[in-house]
């Protein structure tokens, strides 16, 4: 994205050092904010949970981590979070991939409609979605009303069960999944697909042998992004999910705000960082690589 500046551009007559300084000054405040409010808090959270104040001054201790992993309630929350995140990632791929494939290869007039519908949830804030889902699939909600009207029994409502957040999170993250997968499919050349078809490969074999190997990277980026977003999501699990066990987002908020326990809240945050470390690194690495290839 960042193309290399042509020297004759704005300020071309100034000496190079002055220009460099001016550029640095212009980006100073946002970069400082990243350092102060992202990098520093993360390092501080890691250090302050490992080096705690004791009677003999500051000393190294893993007590808060030992507490987290020995406490059944904390472990249940972590397990629920991992279950929800994994399930949502799989469901999003299962739903998003067919839509993305359809959008990539379809010429029909339905394609535009399908795309508009698939990215529509991007325009719906999660708080309004939560409310809408409670009224729709909650107890005596619209779905129950419709089932009752045609003489079928009510559904066991997913509201306040672990399935509530799963439904909400899949709904909420569908647009980005479809967009990222469609972008990944865009790099597959038609000639490769046509060549395979010419030698008689069916749609499944084309998908398995031609398309899938070429979009492995974009599937991983999509999964990384989804995992980062869902692992510590807050609004949907808080409103739609069960009170106990709860996902890491609501758990951290309760520990921090209701129990006034910053140490354990920070420990939970660091544990979330560790579980998402691979996905975060992969996400940054792949975007940095894209930037580079566009610059060159």
């Amino acid at each position, binding site marked *: 994205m960042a193309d290399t500046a042509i020297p004759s551009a704005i300020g071309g007559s100034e000496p190079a050092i002055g220009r460099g300084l001016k550029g640095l000054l212009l980006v100073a405040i946002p970069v400082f904010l990243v350092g102060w409010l992202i990098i520093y808090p993360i390092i501080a959270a890691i250090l302050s949970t490992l080096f705690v104040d004791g009677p003999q001054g500051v000393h190294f201790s893993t007590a808060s981590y030992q507490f987290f992993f020995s406490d059944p309630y904390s472990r249940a929350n972590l397990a629920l979070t991992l279950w929800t995140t994994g399930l949502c990632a799989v469901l999003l791929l299962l739903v998003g991939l067919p839509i993305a494939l359809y959008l990539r290869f379809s010429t029909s007039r339905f394609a535009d*409609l399908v795309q508009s519908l698939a990215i529509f949830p991007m325009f719906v804030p999660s708080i309004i979605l939560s409310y809408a889902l409670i009224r729709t699939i909650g107890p005596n909600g619209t779905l129950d009303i419709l089932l009752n009207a045609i003489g079928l029994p009510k559904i066991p409502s997913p509201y306040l069960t672990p399935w509530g957040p799963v439904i909400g999170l899949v709904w909420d993250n569908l647009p980005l999944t479809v967009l990222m997968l469609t972008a990944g499919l865009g790099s597959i050349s038609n000639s490769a697909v046509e060549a395979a078809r010419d030698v008689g490969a069916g749609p499944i074999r084309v998908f398995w042998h031609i398309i899938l190997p070429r979009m492995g990277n974009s599937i991983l980026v999509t999964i990384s992004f989804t995992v980062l977003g869902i692992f510590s999501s807050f609004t949907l699990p808080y409103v739609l999910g069960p009170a106990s066990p709860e996902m890491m987002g609501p758990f951290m908020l309760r520990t921090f705000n209701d129990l006034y326990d910053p140490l354990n809240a920070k420990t939970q945050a660091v544990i979330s960082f560790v579980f998402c470390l691979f996905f975060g690194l992969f996400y940054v690495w792949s975007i940095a690589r894209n930037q580079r290839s566009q610059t060159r």
Partner: protein
Amino acid sequence: MIRTYSSTSGRFDWTGFLFAVVLAIVIAVPLLVVFTWAFTEIWRYPAVIPQKFGLRFWNQTLSRADVWDALSISLQLSATVTALSALICLPAAYAFARMKFPGRDLFFLSFLASHAFPKFGLLVAIAAIFLQLNLIATFWGVVLIQLVGTLMLMIWIPVAAFQAVDRRMEEAARDVGAGPLRVFWSITLPQAGPTIFAAVLLTFVSTFYETEGAWLIGAPQIRTMPVLMINFINNQVVIQYGAVLSVILWVPSFIALMFARRVIGTGAFAKGFGA
């Protein structure tokens, strides 16, 4: 989108039809339900259609003091955050797009950090810092935490806008003697303007709906609109309050977001949301 396959021409596109119908049901029905509830006075199970439509709950919702307080706080917060974000990020975006300075690529990528960690964990780590600085439950504490969330959007989208400006026109203007400021004002800004405006709009709307930071840092003094909505959902027996608020708040933001997407294109729009 490149569409080259003509295998569907002539035949009815059942796959597309099926996708469209299923998506329409799954996505539209919950929103239609909210709209129906907002204009309903009585809707008792198991009636398929509400027993009584009406605007009674619009009056009741709009006469609640907490609704107006929350709306006022939310608008103040969004306006402050958006203005500050534009003030510090747009010059930086210009520098990233046009100037060469040491560490440029690294600094540019550093904004990814806000999306590379699980969001709520990051917020808790920031909140722990704010605890020592006595910024918890203050207006400016919420401003700061929401400002961090807008950095990437307000830098990456405008950088693309500045880079898309036709450099030959700028050079032509300079050749006929226009100064740097004049070039910026008459050539650069009109071309990059719509995209930048869309980024500002996007920042405003996404800050308005930011829930997690506002709650974690702002509670209990600073109660924004989304936080009030959560309260209505959890503790309010009158269902219609939430529905009326959803309709009032969502319609303007929806129009703003549609406009923003049209201007900056779906891909960049997704990037603004962190894709």
